[in-house]
């Protein structure tokens, strides 16, 4: 993942169509357009896995069924713990077949409709519930070094808990980190970078103006009347964290996409 950062490759989040959509074909067409646009730009398309517990189609099946070209190293699939064992193995096998090696392994958000991996499913004997740590171990054990595995870092969680969990994630095989959205310098991200200077860290930039959603994501209330310019914030994050990559969540493909090519600016001028 280090070369993504060095080559200024944005990680662009794409949400696959929801299961309950009443306009599936339109949504698939929109997904296709976004995916192909990201591929053509040379960025990395990051496809979510039932984000917020809302049932959606899986990224790997969208790519396969729609016949999309997943260019090498330009796709990242999110993979959480809310799957059946059979479904998990099918996702991993399909990703391998499609040459998709980048996975973001997360615990994820559940819902009534979603199954949950059991410890026995992933061969875990030391836990009551499967988290990203057990899922990482399973993927490493079953698939060796094929996959490049990333994990989430939440700077809004209690520090001792999150830091201890991060160490377990790294020990389980995580190779890179994507943070929760940050909109300014974050002391916890700074601490992570100091502790792991060689660890590729990708900070998440919030590209939506819907601050109530950002409040939900970060776990504290950001007043709705807060002045917030996503593009300006993105530029400032590059200056604050020049050695980090950037993950663009909820990017507006109609209004923002064409603007981001000029945003990866570091001290010394535009790149």
């Amino acid at each position, binding site marked *: 993942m280090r070369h993504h950062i060095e080559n200024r490759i944005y990680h662009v989040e794409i949400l696959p169509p929801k*299961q309950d959509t*009443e306009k*599936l074909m339109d949504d698939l067409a929109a997904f296709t357009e976004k995916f192909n646009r990201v591929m053509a730009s040379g960025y990395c398309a990051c496809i979510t896995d039932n984000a917020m517990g809302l049932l959606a*189609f899986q990224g790997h099946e969208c790519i396969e069924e729609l016949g999309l070209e997943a260019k090498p190293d330009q796709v990242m699939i999110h993979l959480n713990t809310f799957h059946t064992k059979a479904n998990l193995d099918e996702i991993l096998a399909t990703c391998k077949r499609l040459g998709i090696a980048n996975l973001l392994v997360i615990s994820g958000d559940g819902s009534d*409709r979603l*199954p949950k991996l059991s410890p026995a499913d992933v061969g875990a004997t030391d836990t009551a519930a499967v988290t990203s740590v057990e899922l990482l171990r399973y993927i490493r054990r079953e698939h060796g070094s094929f996959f490049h595995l990333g994990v989430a870092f939440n700077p809004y969680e209690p520090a001792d808990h999150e830091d201890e969990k991060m160490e377990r994630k790294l020990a389980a095989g995580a190779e890179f980190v994507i943070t929760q959205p940050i909109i300014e310098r974050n002391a916890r991200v700074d601490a992570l970078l100091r502790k792991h200077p060689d660890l590729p860290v990708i900070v998440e930039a919030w590209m939506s103006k819907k601050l109530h959603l950002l409040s939900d994501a970060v776990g504290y209330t950001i007043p709705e009347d807060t002045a917030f310019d996503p593009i300006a914030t993105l530029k400032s994050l590059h200056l604050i964290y020049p050695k980090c990559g950037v993950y663009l969540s909820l990017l507006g493909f109609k209004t923002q996409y064409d603007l981001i090519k000029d945003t990866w600016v570091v001290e010394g001028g535009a790149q």
Partner: protein
Amino acid sequence: MKIVVCIKQVPATSDAKIDPETKRIVREGVKAVLNPFDTYAVEEAVQLRARFGGEVIALTMGPERAAIALKECISVGADRGVLHADRAIAGSDTWATSYVLSQAILAIGGVDLVLCGKQAIDGDTAQVGPGIAAHLGWLQATYVMKVDDATATGLRVRRMHEDGYDVCDVDFPAVLTVVKDINVPRIPTLRGRLAAEKAEIPVWKPADIGCAPELIGLDGSPTRVVRTQPPPPRSGTTTVLDGSARDSARALVAELRRRSIL
């Protein structure tokens, strides 16, 4: 094994409104979904077909938009769907509905097994499955939590009740209503959903399958709703987690994970 799964499209809300005049649930303007309990019946049918071969047919009675619910069944493995829709069946109560469905099952022909969810989340009567069995004169087992065994002539099932379960042998043809414990319904794949989008759903009318006019619709419905009222507010319960903060937090996390919230 030829299996019919009777399903229902229901309002996707727990905040159902009742029309004060008709005493019926207001369905207009409310997003509709496949009755959640029926997803377990569909899954069990698909699993039985995988083990023993045969065909799974999803059947419903309702407005034409109920075809969407049938397509959802096809997207998770049902072979085809049949919609029974006609103005003449409007206002049917559970007895008239189960009569129409039983006639449709006879019209499909050669059916070994009928599966239903234990109840629909809108009416909550749990009467249609047993009603179908009564109209057909078939054996029935309600609240089935597991199919232990199946042969060419019948099933051995576990029937859940408050104190445990009964093991019952049920000869074909039979009607089962199933509970959530029976399986984990699969989530539609995109491939399945795309195939379902293309599926043709035949629409049957009562006259097509020999329904007696006096047994359907309002005329065929012995139920008269004389009054409706909302249920009392659900009373919450509080569980106090004893112990240290760490132990309490662990217990809370474990419980949230058990409920698939985390």
